[in-house]
């Protein structure tokens, strides 16, 4: 490994930012994939995997991917909830890999709700 310059310190810090954000619980947007038995059976794990690999590929640092239990609407799994820090959570249903990538790019990163996939905004209030 090469010798460090002072500038390298900042570079290493930037490169490790995603890891440190995870440890500090810092995020701009959080994508929560529901992983009840129903979610897993419907393919929630491929949704998580697609998300993480996209985050790696694009070197995105401020999106947190978490999982939680069943959201209660088992027939519409896989589902995910996207929450921009401080904003109302939005639930998405019937997800596919392509859909979640679109949600990641448009909603989590750019802040625009992907209405055609959204099930509800806020808590337990259906818009579809």
């Amino acid at each position, binding site marked *: 490994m090469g010798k*460090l310059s*002072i500038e390298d*310190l900042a570079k290493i*810090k930037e490169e*490790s930012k995603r890891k440190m954000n995870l*440890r*500090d*619980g810092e995020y701009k947007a959080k994508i929560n994939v529901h992983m009840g038995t129903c979610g897993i059976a419907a393919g929630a794990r491929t949704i*998580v995997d697609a998300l993480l690999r996209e985050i790696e590929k694009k070197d995105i640092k401020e999106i947190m991917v*978490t999982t939680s239990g069943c959201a209660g609407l088992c027939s519409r799994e896989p589902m995910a909830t996207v929450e921009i820090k401080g904003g109302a959570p939005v639930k998405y249903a019937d997800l596919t890999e392509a859909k979640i990538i679109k949600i990641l790019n448009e909603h989590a990163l750019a802040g625009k709700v992907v209405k055609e996939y959204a099930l509800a905004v806020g808590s337990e209030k259906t818009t579809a």
Partner: protein
Amino acid sequence: MAKAYRIEVMACTGTGCVSNGAFEVIEAIREELKKKNLHSEVDIIATGCNGICALGPIMVVKPDNIFYKEITKKDVPYLVEEHFLKGRPVKKFMYTPPEEKEPIPLLNEINFFTKQVLVALRNRGLVDPEVIEDYIARDGYAAFAKAITEMTPEKVIQEITASGLRGRGGAGFPTGLKWQAVRRATSEEKFIICNGDEGDPGAFMDRSIVESDPHSVIEGLLIGAYATGASKAFVYIRNEYPLAVKRIEIAIEQARDRGLIGEKIFGLDFNFDIKIVRGAGAFVCGEETALIASVEGRLGEPRPRPPYPAEKGLWGRPTCINNVETWATVPVIISRGAKWFSSMGTATSKGTKVFSLVGKVNNTGLIEVPMGITLKEIIYDIGGGITDGKKFKAVQTGGPSGGCITAALLDLPIDYESLTAAGSMMGSGGMVVMDEETCMVDIARYFLSFTAYESCGKCTPCREGTAEMLKILERICNGNGQPSDLETLGTLSHAIKEGSLCGLGKTAPNPVLSTMKYFKEEYESHIYKKKCPAKTCRKLNEYVIDEKRCLSVGHGCDICKKECAYDAIIGQTKEAHRIIQEKCVKCGSCYDVCKFNAININ
């Protein structure tokens, strides 16, 4: 391309958790993650000590900060399935405070952690101590970069002086003043030393810092070397700390690879090297002149001061010697400023102090608190109170050199001066809590046996005096105390304090003096009534079987009789048993084995 994970499991691998099987649990989690194909989503990191050692092995699950305790290998499949796969944190592995029913899921809501302020332990549980990038990611080596590019050595010393930082090894000498003395000394060669010869019974602050964040010590040394004009450092560390030695070795190797140790660091005109010296475990080597002798390869014995090491230290050269915690604190002061650091603490003692909280307290472990916090907050809020709901009796601070502080002083805001005024001392930060069942004479005897054993033998008052005091204390504990013993102990104490060269002898009588001051009636009870009020000194106890209970509850189980090596117990199975006092040697074995509480101590 850095890998992305959704969960990082920060598993403690401090010595406490490791001895409870942390490495095996980590390995089991790794395997389970692979089995469930979760290893590309969930990562597990071996961190340093988290502090709450009594509950090991512990782990904190990020990003949610869920705190798990006492995880064993057989818990792993369930934990991985429930939490890491299905996202349902597992209640039964969470911490429930004593006397409460509901567990607390989040680390930051557990009392043990909320009252702490982390400066020296700033990275605890957040970095992998064996990965330099983790340290750099948390602003590591940025303080050194700031010092060497934006500050003159004088400015660095000014900042440390202004911060009010005092030596964390025990004596509390102002760090800035020491650095200044080394800076001013003229010599073609200067040295700095990191004193990691932590020897107080029950103290593990330095061990934990080196194990969990070794780079913070290296960065402190770099800043100290730049400020004082030294170019070579020695890290003196006990050989009994294998994990600490291994981690500092790895850290030094990594720092060397990345050019943070060596020649022309950061491409500037600054050279620096670090060497590890392993101590063989003599307590006296924590004394700075004895430590220097030991580094030089001579017998670890202290010499008179002055000259102080700042003038004539290692191989006669000006030497700046500070302990592990002091060095680990330095980088934060440089990066956040003296003002920030001195805003914490009391008038004379600034910043924070690391303590190892042990003894009869619920949450034993390693804590860092602002100076000026009260003992009550430490013992009851952080420590979770006394075990088994017993009564608090005293707390011993400063290890074998310190003294006991009683319940009357629980509201004392602690700093260097207040502890000394109370007849104890700050010391390196060992804090042993004692409950009503602790015999204070026995405690004094224990600490004296430690110092008598560890006395290097150079000064007669220390060598002979501590041995003589120990003999008297053993006599008192065995029921052979004389009325004149208290006075003799007092006279000897003062003679040893007066006539010894180094801190070991000068402070060795402190545990005796402070217990005689606050618990004189316990000494008197041992001497005149031949009774130990705490029932700890077995030779003073009389063991009697409650015959009714023996028969009705224990059905004359006969176990005590089988245990007694002196045939002092009579009675047949299914009959009440009895102890023949003339034959009893008061070893207490029968009391220990009786499952029915049928043996009483009079």
